């Protein structure tokens, strides 16, 4: 794999085909855990780790698995990696695994992971599948962070737990509540669509 191809794949995952803002995959996690930057970043990186591992393994075993039980086998592989990430987080960063709660095991059913396994890793060699996992994961992380930054500042007046807004501003709790999740994601995607229709090539969508 050349460096240029690597860059191309990275740009594809992070910008042109950003999973949550352009492909509209994995919305549950995007909205649920983006209440603070710490959670958003943690969830993004955990998902990235699972994506890289599952994409690599799926690509390695893609020729051995009969197509009828393809999905079932992929799901088993993904569930395995999710559980490993869960255990590692429990052991080394328990506060994070606590904050993500039920959404940690739910990485299994995050559509991004199965979608990439099915549409990319099952058709491509291991190395480029791993890179695809990395770029899609980072794209997911970027949009999660964008959501979290907006919601944490507006809804809590803090960023990474540190107060950044003068105390005159009374934080709008609503933005951190479920309502704010729907609203923020709606406006972000609208922004992306707006930029896309202007440039019609669509670049640098999720720069905050």
């Amino acid at each position, binding site marked *: 794999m050349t460096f240029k191809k690597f860059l191309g794949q990275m740009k594809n995952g992070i910008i042109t085909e950003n999973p949550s803002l352009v492909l509209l995959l994995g919305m549950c996690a995007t909205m649920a855990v983006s*209440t*603070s930057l710490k959670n958003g970043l943690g969830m993004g990186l955990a998902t990235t780790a699972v994506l890289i591992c599952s994409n690599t393994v799926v690509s390695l075993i893609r020729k051995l698995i*009969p197509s009828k039980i393809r999905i079932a086998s992929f799901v088993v592989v993904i569930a*395995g990696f999710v559980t490993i990430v869960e255990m*590692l987080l429990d*052991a080394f960063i328990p506060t994070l695994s606590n904050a993500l709660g039920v959404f940690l095991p739910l990485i299994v059913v995050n559509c991004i992971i199965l979608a990439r396994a099915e549409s990319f890793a099952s058709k491509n060699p291991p190395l480029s599948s791993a890179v695809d996992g990395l770029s899609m994961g980072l794209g997911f992380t970027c949009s999660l962070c964008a959501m979290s930054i907006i919601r*944490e500042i507006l809804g*809590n007046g803090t960023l990474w737990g540190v107060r950044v807004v003068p105390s005159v501003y009374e934080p709008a709790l609503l933005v*951190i*509540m479920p309502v704010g999740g729907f609203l923020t994601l709606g406006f972000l995607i609208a922004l992306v669509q707006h930029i896309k229709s202007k440039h019609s090539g669509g670049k640098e969508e999720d720069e905050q």
Partner: protein
Amino acid sequence: MNDVTSKTYILRLTVTLFLVTAVVALLLSFVNAVTKDTIAEKARQKLSAALCEVMPEADDEFSDPIYDDGSCQVYKATSGGRDLGWCIKYPAFGYGGELTLAVGVSESLEVTGVAIVEHSETAGMGSKADNPDWLSQFVGRSGAFTLKGDGDHIDAVTGATVTSRAVTAGVNGALELAAQIKGGEK
């Protein structure tokens, strides 16, 4: 679609899926064996730190609970052989599921401190209850607590009534448990 129902084909499917699952299960049990002790140790450290926090004068040895029913645990708090009271790990049910509280109760059934060991409340809302200033409202008082809106005593955290109510109920439960233990009922 393609009607491949021959026995060998089905067998092959079953064996492949079984192998995949077995390999994954094996890997999981390996990682579990490696991380299990660290996880248990981390949880123990966290609990013992919280128990020390709610009974600052006590010697920091909380190893054998004198009462344990799975969800609540009561530890005897002593200082140089003198009984101080009890440190209690008590569950409460908040907005995002279960919270674990550590409550210190003196011999005279007064609260010496409250700490939240673990919670999964919404960041920025329910999590605001995990704040020493708010939790210190309970310290030095006794009896059944109620929130201001519901009666008296405790100011609820703005925007986190459910969590405040859960913590208050948990502290009340811990006090009751301490009273029962003092009375020799448990």
